[in-house]
């Protein structure tokens, strides 16, 4: 294990050195590739777009942390993202994209409907894993495949094609005075409501996990369910709660993906496109720490934002080749970090002694 820590330290050092080198080269030669890269990376619009792109990954990763910490590996995060991304758009579209109901924008009803759909799918996953002792990996794959089939199916039933029409996205929340500050105003204080939710959710998740008795139960349920059981806490109930929480969080992520970025439409398989799996890598890389997961997600999303910028900048590299950068990064990171120490009882069914 120390071996891995050394690798991780070296990796971080190497990354820092690379960044430093790019910054120096970019400052010295503004017209070089490094210069272009530097100005692209640090431009306020790239950073704010990276924040927006990291929202779905961060929420799915937070959900994955709770589930896996409690002992249930939820590999179906991708499916949860897909279902809420779709339902969010479909419900908003049905209610009327620009209208309001009870003085609340319909887009918010769509958002919560997406969260609800994801939570219900997570409930199904929880019942199958906890009640019927299904293999968690296979059940997680099933959740992914069900959502992968159901969303385009439903879109085709409703709209006659696997994509939905665009319903628009949340208007930015602009914080008075602060949004006027140079750079930070653009990046932090004039952003989509989903970005603010994320900035609240990350510390909150850390607090719940590490400073509350529920968090302690979740961790015990994944590390030593027997002890938790002996202490008189119902392991199944803790795991149910944790998996449902992963449904709620991934639901926020999925709905934020369609209703917080782009044009607010759902495009068959292309919308979610592996973000759920990237989220898993993000929390593994972040070692189950919500802040670490946020950092890793931000890095992946940053690569994605940069990738989009590079395409616009037109460096003559084929677009699809640039698109592979985030995926390759995931593989490299995973290979260098390897399997972090998973919770002791993760993946195992727990049968309470008493019937």
């Amino acid at each position, binding site marked *: 294990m120390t071996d891995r820590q050394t690798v991780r330290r070296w990796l971080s050092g190497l990354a820092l050195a690379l960044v430093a080198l790019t910054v120096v080269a970019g400052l010295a030669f503004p017209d070089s590739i490094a210069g272009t890269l530097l100005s692209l990376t640090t431009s306020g619009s790239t950073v704010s777009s990276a924040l927006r792109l990291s929202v779905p990954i961060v929420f799915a990763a937070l959900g994955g942390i709770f589930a896996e910490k409690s002992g249930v590996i939820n*590999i179906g995060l991708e499916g949860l993202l897909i279902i809420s991304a779709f339902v969010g758009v479909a419900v908003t579209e049905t209610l009327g994209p620009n209208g309001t109901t009870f003085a609340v924008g319909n887009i918010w009803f769509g958002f919560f409907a997406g969260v609800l759909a994801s939570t219900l799918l997570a409930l*199904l996953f929880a019942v*199958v894993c906890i*009640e*019927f*002792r*299904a*293999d968690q*990996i*296979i*059940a997680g*794959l*099933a*959740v*992914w*495949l*069900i*959502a*992968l*089939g*159901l969303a*385009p*199916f*439903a879109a*085709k*039933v*409703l709209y006659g094609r*696997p994509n939905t029409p665009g319903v628009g996205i949340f208007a930015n929340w602009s914080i008075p005075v602060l949004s006027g500050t140079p750079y930070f105003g653009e990046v932090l204080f004039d952003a989509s409501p989903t970005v603010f939710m994320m900035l609240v959710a990350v510390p909150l998740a850390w607090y719940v996990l590490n400073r509350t008795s529920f968090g302690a139960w979740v961790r015990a349920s994944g590390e030593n369910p027997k002890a938790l059981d002996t202490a008189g806490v119902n392991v199944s109930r803790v795991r149910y709660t944790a998996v449902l929480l992963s449904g709620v969080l991934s639901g926020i992520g999925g709905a934020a993906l369609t209703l917080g970025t782009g044009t607010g439409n759902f495009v068959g398989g292309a919308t979610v*496109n*592996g973000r759920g*799996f990237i989220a*898993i*890598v993000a929390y*593994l890389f972040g070692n189950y720490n919500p802040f670490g997961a946020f950092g890793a997600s931000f890095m992946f999303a940053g690569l994605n934002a940069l990738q989009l910028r590079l395409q616009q900048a037109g460096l003559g590299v*084929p677009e*699809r*080749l640039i*698109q*592979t950068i985030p*995926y*390759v990064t*995931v*593989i490299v990171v*995973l*290979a*260098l970090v*390897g*399997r972090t120490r998973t919770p002791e009882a993760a*993946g195992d*069914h727990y*049968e309470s002694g008493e019937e």
Partner: protein
Amino acid sequence: MSARDRGRAVLARLVDASIVERFVISLAALALSIVVGAVIVLVAGWSATCSAPATSFGVPLTVFGDPICYDPVGVYVTLFTGAFGNVLARPTNFNVALTLQETSLLVFTGLSVAVAFRSGLFNIGTQGQLVLGALASALTVLGVAPHVPAGIVGAAIAVPVGLLVGGLFGGLYGAIPGALKAYADANEVITTIMFNFVATNLAFVAVSEYFQASGSQVVQTEKIPAFARIQPFGFPSGSGFSLLALALGLALAVGLWLLLERTALGYDLRTTGAQPKAAEYGGVNAERTVITSMFVSGAFGGIGGAVWVLMVMGSYQIGIPSLGFDGITVSILAGNNPLGVPVAALLFGILKSGSLAVEFAGSVPHELAGVLRGLIILFVAMPEFFRLLGRRFSLGEGKPGPAAPTGGESE
């Protein structure tokens, strides 16, 4: 009797004991998926808009006056009959050809997933291995074809070479996540999924930048000359199916079964899957076994890709259907048994061809097949549910089942 033989006997008994139960569970999962699928069809039919409600057994279907546009029973009837067309009058009609085409392709991808599963690995990357195998095979045959005599002799050279190269590239591409798993402990579920995205993008760039067919609107390679493809043996040309491919798939299924059950390598693979610690203690080189397993798995996927190119498309074209993902379902439904794979593949062949017939008949979108695929996996993953049901209605012995991962023998 050596220790190894004794171990083999124990394993064989275990497999025999559970094989009937697995079969029953697969059937029950299938039945339950059909029922849940019918409910989904009803709900979808209620949400869809249509001028007149569908009728089931002569009764128009409505809920609170709202028409239901699809008749679930009719959907399944069309699905099943549509998969075979007018099979009595013309056994080699196009519907049968499409069903068997999908069946043979799924035999390859199903075997690909099964061999990895049996050694305790989740190869979700069959799709990517298939994509690269297909591309490599197409390019090789395009290169070979001008140098061999056109006709049967040329086919006898070009087709096997294409299949071999497809298998080799698929295998090598599968061995990469295998090596990452073996030496860096990188979770193969995640890496293989990422490698799928990478393969699709790489193939796209390779074709669009370097091998694009001139004058084509679609991103694809040049067409392979007709003689260098898999001949439509027994079926009309243009049907996209050849009994030769199905025969190859069946032969490979038997071959894989023999490899797993009757050879030392197979024994190593299976024990690594079932009891990794015991296998290592027994002298199995775990790293090499993981890589070998992923190579074999990827090779099956690559051969599937080669068959897709040489039998169905005649060129490499982007937008390959999700044969690799369907292979996961096929393998899980078959209990990861190579001999069960062709049966499960036939079932999904029917589902594919039948769901297209259903959509063609103006009913439910063919994406229904994707939903059923997920449901089947979900239900196969929860054997305990069916055991509980069985005990409730006192069917079978009703012994409490172990909390075993029945879908994949992995841990």
